[in-house]
């Protein structure tokens, strides 16, 4: 009998602790498939953040080290500079990458660090219970914007990928989502491209993934998938934001 589907080798045999309908498990799956396909298990080093995915090391069967909130890009810089043969990725949420870790992220990208950031944008702080994130949409209700995000007081949803695309050190940036089979396939393709740009030593790469958080959005999984299409992608349009990987020669 031909086996057409199985657990990725680099995905540990642990049950996901994530909520029903959460995007993390899908993204973990996609990433570990890629780690297998690209033969990265013995050189990948992952940096998960504080947050729901703090336990990512229960699932990724690669070397991993926890980072302080927001410091993923700096930790990854230290690892990559000390051991350039590694394929280093950070796994960061919107609060982590676009609020407390803005400086680390922007400067790692600007230095063109050969690292890959997997940026999970779910428009809320998940683990702490659904507070406003830098990417929370205008008028969106969260536990700290109970009357909806007032852009006059709380600012606008921040488009981190577009900001990072302005930096010369960033070579590949794409925004995808995991709310449909098509989008999941696109996500996988984007992460493959990002990893490849790191393998080719081109510069900083980032994939922003719009990911559902049904628990904190107070929706069921289907509604949350639809909400990404209907609301989130209006503020955060999907697609390749920057790709200069073709322009540079791999060295």
């Amino acid at each position, binding site marked *: 009998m031909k086996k057409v589907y199985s657990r990725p080798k680099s995905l540990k045999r642990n049950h996901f602790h994530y909520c029903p309908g959460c995007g993390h498990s899908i993204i973990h799956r996609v990433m570990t498939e890629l780690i297998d396909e690209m033969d990265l298990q013995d050189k990948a080093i992952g940096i998960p953040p504080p947050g729901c995915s703090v336990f990512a090391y229960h699932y990724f069967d690669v070397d991993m080290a926890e980072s302080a909130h927001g410091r993923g890009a700096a930790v990854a810089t230290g690892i990559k500079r*000390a*051991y350039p043969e590694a394929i280093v990725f950070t796994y960061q949420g919107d609060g982590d990458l676009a609020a407390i870790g803005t400086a680390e992220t922007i400067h790692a990208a600007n230095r063109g660090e050969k690292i890959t950031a997997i940026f999970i944008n779910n428009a809320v702080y998940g683990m702490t219970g659904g507070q406003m994130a830098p990417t929370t949409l205008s008028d969106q209700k969260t536990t700290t914007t109970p009357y909806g995000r007032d852009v006059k007081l709380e600012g606008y949803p921040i488009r981190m990928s577009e900001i990072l695309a302005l930096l010369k050190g960033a070579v590949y940036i794409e925004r995808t989502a995991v709310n449909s089979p098509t989008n999941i396939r696109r996500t996988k393709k984007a992460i493959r491209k990002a990893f490849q740009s790191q393998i080719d030593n081109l510069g900083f790469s980032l994939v922003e993934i719009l990911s559902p958080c049904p628990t904190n959005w107070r929706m069921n999984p289907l509604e949350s998938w639809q909400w990404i299409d209907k609301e989130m992608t209006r503020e955060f349009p999907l697609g390749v934001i920057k790709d200069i990987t073709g322009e540079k020669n791999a060295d």
Partner: protein
Amino acid sequence: MTGNSAVGEAAIRAGCQGYFGYPITPQNELTEYMAAHLSRRRGCSFVQAESEIAAINMVYGASLAGVRAMTSSSSPGISLKQEGISYLAACELPAVIVNMSRGGPGLGSISAAQSDYFQATRGGGHGDYRCIVLAPSSVQELADLTHRAFDLADRYQIPVIILGDGMLGQMMEPVEFKHEAPEEPPVRSNALRGAKGRPSRIIKTFTSKPTELEELNWSLFRRYQLIKKEETTCETFLVEDAELIVVAFGIAARIAKGAIKNARTAGLRVGMLRPVTLWPFPAEAVREFAKRTKYFLVFEMNMGQMVEDVRLALEGKGEVFFYGRPGGVIPTPSEVLRVISRHYYQEGLR
């Protein structure tokens, strides 16, 4: 050579392969030295980070990858680094952190001060941990202790702080380096370098089981006990017949030494105990002296921090006086001599 440059050269000779820093006075010459000398070495990296927070986290990353790594700063910048130091301590990772301290609190002054004693010796960041703290009092000792710091960090898998001050960093003195830089600095065997030929490795502390974290704390503190036993270091000066013992560290000890020499000339039986390791504090040595004399004068360039460790060590047995100048004021040897004489005569030690 300036103290700052001496630390840089000694670090390179100790096999340091990663330096990550952010400019702040009075330690910029160290960052500049590493930019000029470390960055050109094969397999070594220098990054001027976007902040002290980023710098210490780069140190954390480089240490994860198994190389000897360091950062340096001065008081306000060291405050920012505390987050990373706590993570290093928790994850049992070696690192060397240099604090060329200056007057505080706040932005303070850029003049030499010793007001970071508590911060350095009590862990400094959140959680229950200690760093080994070394306090040099000359440029030569800065170089020697830098080498020792890297060795201690590796031996005990612990962050080590070199607590200097602005004056030590800025001043020049002759210095001799006792080691040559290694051709191939060793990589720590428990490094994160990809799961090649071994199971994947996780470096973390976060756990939802308090008992697990309790066990980590216990294991850290068992190691701290070992460090106390093996590594506590102090210097003594003219203590044999001393009736008054001055306790001082770093640059203050150096000033006190000058005062004590003059006191001796005047016939006062005064000696000095200088802790070289501030943590672990040489409590045993202090207690030993209490068997011979009752009187201790603690002299610090702060409002009185180490004096608490002296009192704790004495367990009420001696009489402890304190003299301090905070804010970056550098007392003169003659000023300290006046304080010594005053206590000496007041206690009827003549």
